[in-house]
């Protein structure tokens, strides 16, 4: 997993509540056997017209938002199924940070497993950030995980909360597996002890 300490990138606004995992990644794309390559299907039904061309009315298709890294959105983002394809698609598209007023629980957890920082903002802060993007489309925001601050050229400075253990994993680019592997000696010791007591479990 890629480390996340500080990122500066274009912010895009998707002003909707309850964006569910079906909208993030539609179910016709789930039968793939890979984790990558979902970015091109992100928000498929909104992003593309029936003939497969880009929908000019969809926010993320605005030229100013190309290469966006920060997504400003509404309430209860990521609700619906537990499918991990949703964060896979967001990361693959290029998003590093999401700012929403709330998230669905499983989606929120899945973000950290996949190197995305989901920031919870108050309605007021979210609206201020969105207003700045809309006033100057293409503006870049800076998200500093170490100091837990999101700053904008317009002078907004938003302090955010993040669970210390999750922060540590993101900062060091450790996914859960990396973190667990730091306990490798304990696992090996456990196995030795278990093997001595219950040798039939080992072949």
């Amino acid at each position, binding site marked *: 997993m890629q480390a996340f300490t500080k990122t500066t990138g274009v912010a895009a606004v998707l002003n909707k509540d309850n964006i569910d995992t079906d909208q993030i990644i539609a179910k016709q794309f789930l*039968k793939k*056997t*890979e*984790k*990558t390559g979902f970015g091109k299907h992100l928000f498929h039904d909104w992003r593309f017209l029936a003939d497969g061309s880009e929908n000019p009315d969809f926010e993320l298709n605005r030229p100013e938002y190309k290469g966006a890294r920060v997504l400003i959105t509404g309430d209860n983002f990521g609700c619906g199924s*537990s499918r*991990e394809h949703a964060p896979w698609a967001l990361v693959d598209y290029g998003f590093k940070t999401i700012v929403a007023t709330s998230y669905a629980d499983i989606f929120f957890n*899945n973000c950290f*497993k996949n190197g995305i920082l989901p920031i919870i903002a108050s309605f007021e802060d979210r609206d201020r950030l969105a207003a700045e993007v809309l006033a100057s489309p293409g503006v870049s925001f800076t998200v500093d995980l170490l100091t837990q601050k999101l700053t904008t050229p317009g002078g907004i400075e938003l302090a955010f909360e993040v669970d*210390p*253990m999750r922060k540590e994993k993101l900062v060091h680019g450790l996914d*859960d*597996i990396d973190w*667990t*592997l730091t*306990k*490798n000696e*304990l*696992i090996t010791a*456990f*196995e030795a002890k*278990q093997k001595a*007591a*219950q*040798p*039939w*479990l*080992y*072949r």
Partner: protein
Amino acid sequence: MKKTMYEKIWDAHLVYSEEGVTPLIYIDRHLMHEVTSPQAFQGLLEMSRPIRRPEAVLATLDHCIPTINRDQPIKDSIAANQVATLQNNCRINGLLLFDMQGPDNGIIHVVAPENGFTHPGMTVVCGDSHTATHGAFGALAFGVGTSEVEHVLATQTLPQKASKTLLIKIEGKLGPGVTPKDVTMAVIGKIGTAGGNGHVIEYAGSAVRAMSMEGRMTLCNMAIEAGARAGMVAPDQKTFDYLQGKKFAPGPEHWEKAVSYWKSLVSDEGAHFDQVIELDTASIGPQVTWGTSPEQVMAIDQTIPKTSDFNDAGKQEALKNALHYMGLKSGQRMTEVSLDWVFIGSCTNSRIEDMRAAAQVIKGKKVNPKVRAIVVPGSYPVKRQAEAEGLDRIFKEAGFEWREPGCSMCLAMNGDELAPGQRCASTSNRNFEGRQGKGGRTHLVSPEMAAAAAIAGHFVDIRTWS
């Protein structure tokens, strides 16, 4: 301190714990199938991470494989790709795979116990929610997501929060026509699909002790439908007898030591459970679901409830929606409801006892001409055993189709499915909308009830069957 079986197993698997950090537990056995594993292997490959204990893994093909013409290439290219991907991943990594044509192939939750792969006291995971089945052996067995499949492959551990404990005591003898399937459905009817949320269930009581291992597997299989993380039954002599001599069971050199360890796992007398629920078998009749959730269930001699039977507005709404989808009405008797399909199979009810019970009911009778009925044994060993006993002939002579093993119509991923509006009596575990095919209507029942319904063409109260 007095401990429950869950707590004993948990404590025996704790690798690391620290204030404010999710504990890390060791996983003894990892079961696998073709649908939820591909991205896990890909993740390992991308990070060049090896599989920590390949011998702890058992894989099978079950979800999307055809139950007819098994020797021909799979027509659905996406299914074919999933099958080939698992075959490949197992070959490259040296994992044991019960391949499609192999003599041990079958549904993962049928073949693992059949081979003695899951023992009492183990932690067992699978990227599949019905992993709870293995709790029948006194193991802590639960379903995990794809990231966790990858995590277990790489580290043989999982970060896990401890669950609460729920003791369900079922006392008494099961009435005529009442099976473990009816018991597990009646439990869900009583506590609801969220009743077990955050808990691990231990099923106990004289009715559970009297159940065979097959019956206990059926019981634990649907713990997930009660919202529980896992279901379990304390091991006893039946458990040991079932395991002894099985391929992956402890060999004679370890047998006695293993059994004495297993005996020590039983919940201590007076151990504290966070919740206790008691059920009397006298209150349990043969069950049938009328709705689109496993909790929308009743005894076959009852009538479909009406909105005023529920206080909760959510449940009232759910009833209306379910009856609309199912094409049924409040006050109706299920014995008046006719069927298009009967499916006997799935990891809930496809073991040899289920085959015997269903065959017993239909012997010498004919499937109603309006009904299409299929039997899908849980594994090749079940299929061979049934054939050795002549059960296949009973089914075929009655007009049932006798298929190759797999998940088949339980989730209808392999092409065995209902057409919109068709109604099915099914021995599987989920009656969700569209589970057996878009617009399909599923009624969950025991194998005996399904078999009788196939003959009659409508549901029957198995207690009146002759």
